[in-house]
């Protein structure tokens, strides 16, 4: 994922503060998570599809990054169509499977909702650089620097863990124990990886301390994280999509708040 490959990117959307991207995707997602109707999700999805071409992505990249979403959404929908709460006419009934008007409607709503929540998040976060996100979280959201920087430095080590895992795998073959007992071997490797990562972590902590991390006194930030007009526009777009989706659902009479009376 992008959070790991850390490439610098260019383009208008790439330059927007990651905190604004986080807020915008949150604003879109929240109302959709709290209602189960298809109108709100469909409206949000249509609005998003109109905006995605302006996100500064090439289409090849768009499909490469979002294919898991396109796969997961229909799978979820099929599951719900087969097993979801029945209502209205029943089309197929076999053991636990019952496909009905009710479950089909729910399936369609879910399909749209997964797409409407996941697509904007993926598209916005493709251009998020973890260092910039950490800067934003610390300087704008004012999360504690120790926490944010610790997480950021830790994130960089995930690549090393992947290499460690491969080496552990090869080493087990070389030691003559890789022919059977896959499950037990997996557990052993997981433990070995844990030991290795704790060691790496404590070395990293020493290296950070040796550079004055945790020194008394106020920390400064080399990179200014700013939140200006561009960021407010993006947050406004997020809020707008959410608002239009809610109003459309209420007007259509399909709004059904999961926490409210059904």
């Amino acid at each position, binding site marked *: 994922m992008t959070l790991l490959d*850390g*490439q*610098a990117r260019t383009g208008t959307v790439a330059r927007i503060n990651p905190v604004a991207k986080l807020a915008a995707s949150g604003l879109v997602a929240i109302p959709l998570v709290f209602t189960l109707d298809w109108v709100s999700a469909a409206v949000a999805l249509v609005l998003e599809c109109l905006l995605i071409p302006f996100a500064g992505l090439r289409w090849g990249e768009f499909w490469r990054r979002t294919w898991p979403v396109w796969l997961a959404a229909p799978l979820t929908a099929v599951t719900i169509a087969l097993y979801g709460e029945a209502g209205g006419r029943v089309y197929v009934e076999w053991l636990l499977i019952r496909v009905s008007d009710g479950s089909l409607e729910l399936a369609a709503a879910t399909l749209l909702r997964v797409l409407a929540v996941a697509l904007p998040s993926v598209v916005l976060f493709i251009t998020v*650089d*973890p*260092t910039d996100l950490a800067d934003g979280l610390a300087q704008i959201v004012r999360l504690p620097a120790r926490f944010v920087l610790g997480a*950021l*430095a830790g994130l*960089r080590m995930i*690549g*090393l863990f992947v290499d*460690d895992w*491969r*080496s*552990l795998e*090869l*080493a*087990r*073959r*070389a*030691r*003559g*124990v*890789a*022919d059977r007992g896959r499950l037990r071997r997996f557990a*052993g490797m997981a433990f*070995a990886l844990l*030991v*290795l990562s704790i*060691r*790496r972590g404590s*070395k*990293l902590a*020493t*290296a*950070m*301390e*040796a*550079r*004055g*991390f*945790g*020194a*008394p*006194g*106020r*920390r*400064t*930030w*080399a*990179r*200014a994280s700013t939140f200006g007009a561009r960021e407010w526009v993006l947050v406004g777009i997020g809020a707008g999509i959410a608002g239009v989706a809610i109003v459309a659902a209420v007007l259509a009479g399909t709004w059904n708040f999961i926490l409210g009376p059904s």
Partner: protein
Amino acid sequence: MTHPARVEVRGWGWRHASRNAWAVRGVDLTIAPGERVLLLGASGAGKSTLLHGLAGVLGGADEGEVEGEILLDGARAADQRGRAGLVLQDPDSQVILARVGDDVAFGCENLGVPRDQIWPRVEMALGAVGLDVPRDRPTKALSGGQKQRLALAGVVAMQPGLVLLDEPTANLDPGGVEEVRDAVAAMLQAHPATLVVIEHRVDVWLPLVDRVIVLGGHDAAGVVADGTPAEVLGSLGDSLAQAGVWVPGHPPVEPAPPVAESGQTLLTTRGLAVQRVAGHPVATGLDLDVRAGEVLAVTGPNGAGKSTLGLTLAGLLPPAAEEVVAEEVLADGAGPHPIRWSSRDLLTRIGTVFQDPEHQFLARTVRDELEIGPKALGLAEEETRSIVDDLLERMRLTRLAAANPYTLSGGEKRRLTVASMLATAPRVLILDEPTFGQDAVTWSRLIGLLADLRDAGSAVVIVTHDLDAVRALHAREVRLGGDR
């Protein structure tokens, strides 16, 4: 710009919270501002602990017990973050941020340097260590030597009065070693500071230091020698060499040349290409023969695909093109392609010693570790016991039989991984950087052991940067080209 720091260590000692013995004790010394000190001593003498103490990063009372005091310019070292800067041994575990400029700026941020002063300092620091890459270059794209120079730049940017280097070049290839040493020299020109460096390889640092201090370790506590390099190495050269320090003019013992011509060919490759990740071959067109009674050394710069070749010959990685072919005398009915052998089949045919011993450990004790191979072969308990006892003895690990492998020293870990492979007596032994970062004593023992294996008719393949090892083993060298 700040001035070089004055260091005073008075009756200082440190005991790690989980240990009974003091890591280091009774150290008294004074270092004048601007002095450049090489700190020596046997492994386990507490050099690293002292350096961490000077850097003020040993931690509080829950980490361990301290006695005496360490003062920088008359004030406690632990209270003066930023007055001392420390560079550690492992290049990978001290890169903190994803981009070069941000990583160098990290120390300045922590010390509260105002933003408009940070970036000029970053430029100055990168210039001082000669790291001429764009500020937004991803840190993971740097070589080992560049990563160490990056760490040094991060320290320089903090403008410390005391620069501490803990074996900064032990994990680097020969090119990287010189690169870092020269960067330290240039850094001291641009930014005068007091310097304390720990390193087994004395010759690398001799041109730079004006004083040598030797720590005694377990039996003789505190400082046992202190003076100019000529004085200390002249009087203590022999005993330092015996303690594992690489002292110029005191080369480690080397084994005799091979007793016989090389024997049968066991493995061959023609036009072999190797890869770790499918679709990204790192070396191609390799024609090799691995022969019994001979050491084959695979050398070449970082990134040339040496380790990948080693793992491919070992039957652990599938080739990218063509095959590794095992002759029938080695295959013994298991088929011509090692990559298709079972894990158990490999045990008696090809053994592999990985660069990082910890990747290879499977058991809780040294004895259990050695029993894994024989047990996987289904040998009787009695036979297993006698094989393991013999190996413990030969590898000088007997007194550590009940110890946890992870708690061993670097040299002991290396001997254990070699021993665990020898337990099943493979005809071919492949070792990745076996002498990396080892002190002179361990080096000498390892080389002797490999020479014995060679003379007993095994085929040995070493992947290495260590040209001394290649020469001492009278190895046939195969150099991989490749650009970095």
